[in-house]
């Protein structure tokens, strides 16, 4: 079925949205900086949130997002029109995440060794402080997982995406994603127990 045939079955607003995305993608392929800006305005929030959750470090997450958008004009060549641009951006982030995750994990390990946890916001209410601590504990535990399991956990559990969507992002079968998630959760429970967190 051709693209125009598939559009014929869609509601008008969806057709319009898809046509607009197609135009945007064409401009990205031509390397228009303004097109990158438009994509950023629309999707950067989601990409940055994912990067923070995955990497667990503010600076490394921003580096990752920067890399995603700077490489977008060349990466867009492999974009499949059928998938969403946001999913594609997250998949770029996943592909570039490995060394950012490693760098952040090293930083966290060093901090833990010297007992210098990154400072909390002193003015935060108690609940916020607790949340920050919980998130940090989970990030430390995530550092013990292989990157594939870490990505599966963050996408499925933290971002609450469907296994189908995650499979599309990571380019693996759904069953593989579910297996990775299962092992990730098991290891995380063990890690958190080891640290006396229960």
């Amino acid at each position, binding site marked *: 079925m051709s693209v125009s045939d598939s559009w014929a079955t869609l509601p008008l607003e969806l057709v319009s949205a898809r046509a607009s995305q197609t135009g945007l993608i064409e401009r990205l392929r031509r390397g228009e900086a303004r097109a990158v800006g438009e994509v950023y305005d629309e999707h950067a929030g989601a990409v940055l949130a994912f990067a923070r959750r995955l990497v*667990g470090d503010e600076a490394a997450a921003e580096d990752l997002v920067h890399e995603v958008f700077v490489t977008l004009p060349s990466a867009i060549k492999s974009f499949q029109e059928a998938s969403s641009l946001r999913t594609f951006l997250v998949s770029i982030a996943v592909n570039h995440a490995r060394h950012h995750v490693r760098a952040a994990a090293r930083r966290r390990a060093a901090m833990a060794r010297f007992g210098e946890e990154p400072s909390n916001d002193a003015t935060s209410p108690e609940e916020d402080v607790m949340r920050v601590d*919980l998130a940090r504990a989970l990030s430390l535990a995530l550092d013990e997982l292989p990157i594939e399991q870490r990505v599966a956990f963050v996408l499925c559990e933290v971002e609450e995406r469907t296994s189908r969507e995650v499979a599309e992002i990571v380019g693996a079968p759904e069953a593989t994603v579910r297996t990775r998630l299962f092992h990730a959760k098991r290891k995380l429970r063990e890690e958190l127990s080891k640290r006396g967190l229960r």
Partner: protein
Amino acid sequence: MSDDFLDRATKALRKEGEASPEDLRRLRSRVTEGVRVQQRRRSRLWTAAFPIAAVLVATTAWAAGTGRLGAAMRGVRALFVPETTVVATAPAPVAAPPKPLPLPVPVPEPVEAPPPPPPESVPPPAPIASAPAAPIPSAKPSVAPSVAVEPEPAPTPAVEDAGTADLALYKRAHKLHFVDKDPAAALGAWDEYLKASPGGAFVAEARYNRAICLVKLGRKAEAKAALQPFADGTVAGGYRKDDARKLIEALEAP
């Protein structure tokens, strides 16, 4: 540990990840700058690559237009596989190891012997047949057939401009062969050129002309041996293949 703790930690991480508009604004300027830098890099690459590509295309077109492309290509090929394609099939004089070639661009027009006339125009090979298998090198062309070996119209002017020693040797051999019409002297001169420049740009031409000298001198067996690689098409991608076959046929004719 309870799943409850993992759930709470997961929720905490979810909440912690949320990006504020301020964070996004700050990061936007960084991303925009990064994209611009990337574009500048790409455009610089194009700026550098385009003239190089244009020069390459123009020189190739010029070489093709002036008939120098073949010699240039042979020169380039000889740079990478000098032994196997050019020298390996050469007779004894070119057995010395190759040395660096002159650049293909300033190379003068290759000098080629005229194509031999068709076999029917070849006079009876009696003189060849009656000639000794290896006559004295100084023998004059009186014993040679008037086959396909008659002189080149004129010396190539490009050779006149050549400054290298190798090309001077080539020029000398060319003059002896085509202007002075002295095959014995030309044979020595071709050998000298091939010895001095075993991987040179004109090795194929020199070897062919050397073989012609042998034919003119009536050194039938040596001429055949020298022509055989050309007839087999193993020299410079089939250089003078048909001519060499016809000459060998003429030499073998009763």
